[in-house]
């Protein structure tokens, strides 16, 4: 058995429905994330991706079920799970350095001011913001703000990095650069990452595994796609890889039709939400993606 850093076990999230009763965003959701894995989740808007991430972060509590991190059930937010917010969520009255140092100081309460500053500066440099330490967030571009958010999360050296569409508000060029940097940093430190994205290409470039979520309400994890591309990837060469179109088409096919019709797809067949299929789409033959194995 592989070592699971995170184990989402049978979580459900329900909200009171407008006409009385309850609607479930999802029910009985299971997902495991291994140490050092980069996992992306894709699915249509409103299916509950942010809800899953917030539960992982501890910012939201599931209606049912538990999340286990390193063999301990979580009870709320903690410093071992750092969040990179979609809206960067920088404190606007603090400088770049102030924002990162706030996080460092929160984790290392016994550190001296100088040590905190030194540690924060290291991570500001890592995301390429050297020279902007004393700027306020309002003086930064969208991409720079998101870099500060990344530096703040990385400076915590967390067990787990949680990202909710971190690059969706950025222009294509900035997004590409930041993807490269996040990939470089996470790969070099063996960072475990859970990231939500709408962008299929982003998922293919970054992820080791891609979790496919069906449309809500009562969304479910349809399958987990293993990325057939080698770990060493070059964003400009990636599309030349033999398996690139296999995985890309598989993901797009899911988003376009299967996410909607998935309930019919499995109707009448045995379905175990605890062990959803793990597939590895590769170039034809065979043309259709085949189940690699059923997770036992």
């Amino acid at each position, binding site marked *: 058995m592989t070592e699971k850093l995170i184990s989402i076990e049978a979580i459900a999230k329900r909200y009171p429905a407008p006409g009385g009763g309850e609607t479930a965003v999802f029910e009985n959701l299971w997902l495991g994330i291994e140490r050092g894995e980069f996992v992306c989740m894709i699915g249509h808007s409103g299916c509950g991706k942010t809800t899953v991430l917030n539960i992982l972060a501890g*910012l939201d509590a599931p209606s049912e079920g538990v999340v286990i991190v390193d063999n301990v059930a979580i009870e709320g937010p903690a*410093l071992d799970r*750092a*969040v990179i*917010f979609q809206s960067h*969520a920088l404190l606007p*009255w603090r400088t770049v350095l102030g924002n990162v140092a706030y996080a460092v100081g*929160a*984790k290392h309460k016994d550190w001296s001011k100088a040590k905190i500053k030194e540690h924060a500066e290291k991570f500001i440099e890592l995301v390429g913001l050297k020279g902007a330490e004393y700027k306020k967030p309002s003086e930064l571009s969208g991409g720079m703000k998101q870099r500060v958010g990344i530096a703040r999360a990385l400076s915590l050296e967390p067990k787990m990095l949680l990202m909710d569409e971190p690059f969706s508000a950025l222009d294509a060029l900035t997004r590409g650069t930041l993807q490269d940097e996040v990939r470089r940093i996470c790969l070099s430190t063996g960072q475990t990452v859970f990231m939500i994205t709408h962008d299929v290409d982003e998922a293919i470039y970054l992820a080791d595994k891609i979790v496919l979520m069906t449309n809500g309400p009562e969304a479910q994890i349809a399958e987990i796609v293993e990325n057939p591309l080698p770990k060493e990837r070059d964003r400009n060469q990636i599309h030349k890889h033999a398996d690139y179109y296999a995985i890309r088409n598989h993901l797009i096919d899911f988003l376009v039709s299967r996410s909607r019709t998935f309930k019919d797809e499995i109707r009448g067949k045995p379905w175990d939400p605890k062990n959803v299929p793990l597939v590895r789409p590769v170039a034809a033959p065979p043309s259709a993606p085949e189940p690699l194995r059923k997770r036992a």
Partner: protein
Amino acid sequence: MTLSARAGIVSILILVLFLGAWHLATSGSSSVQQMDPEYAKLMGITATQGKSAMPGPLQVGATLWKHLTNPFYDNGPNDKGLGIQLAYSIGRVAIGYLLAVLVAIPLGFLIGMSQLMSRALDPFIQVLKPISPLAWMPLALYTIKDSNYSAIFVIFICSVWPMLINTAFGVATVRKEWLNVARTLEVGPLKRAFTVILPAAAPTILTGMRISIGIAWLVIVAAEMLVGGTGIGYFVWNEWNNLSITNVINAILVIGIVGMVLDQLLARAAKLVTYPE
């Protein structure tokens, strides 16, 4: 020419026009009517010399100069310098206002952070807020038995509401994502209050404080007219009883200027804590 330079010129023009009109209106020279000298004596200079009893700008200016050059003289209870009277008023406002800050900001935090307290205290605030501060005066005089403290109490009660309501609002509307940042960093409640909520709500709190200082300065004049003794409000009332309209106008001018200065001080403070997003 810049806009502010042009605006300045227009302002000066308006001032000159106003002073000119005032001067003309008060130095009227309607023909002196023939009348019984005894009657004329009774009527005073208004009737006898065709002059208005309303002082002109020159007269007011001259007294103002006297006040400005000697603001702190003290010739007994009914004749004190304008500076002394202002100091009394500002002192009362400062004490009442600071007491209100000490009560309103912590209480506003509580209300802003707790749905329960917010709902529980809401009816009291709704009823107490619209009460004219002067309506408290008799009750204050009866219970405190000291006119000075009563005036301070009235200032306290009128400044407390805008600060309380703004603080509660500012605290309740702190962006959720900032609170989430604090939560994911496991920042304790007290540290969170000081490092996230207070800076985030500070502009709104300062807005409330600015409204409060304005109201307090409005109310002190009325309160001092009621309780008497000292202060700029009492000065106005006393000079009215002396029929010295010149001094009344002087006091009005000074009240306006002090009010403006207080407002500007709070505006500066608000600017210091405002953050661009």
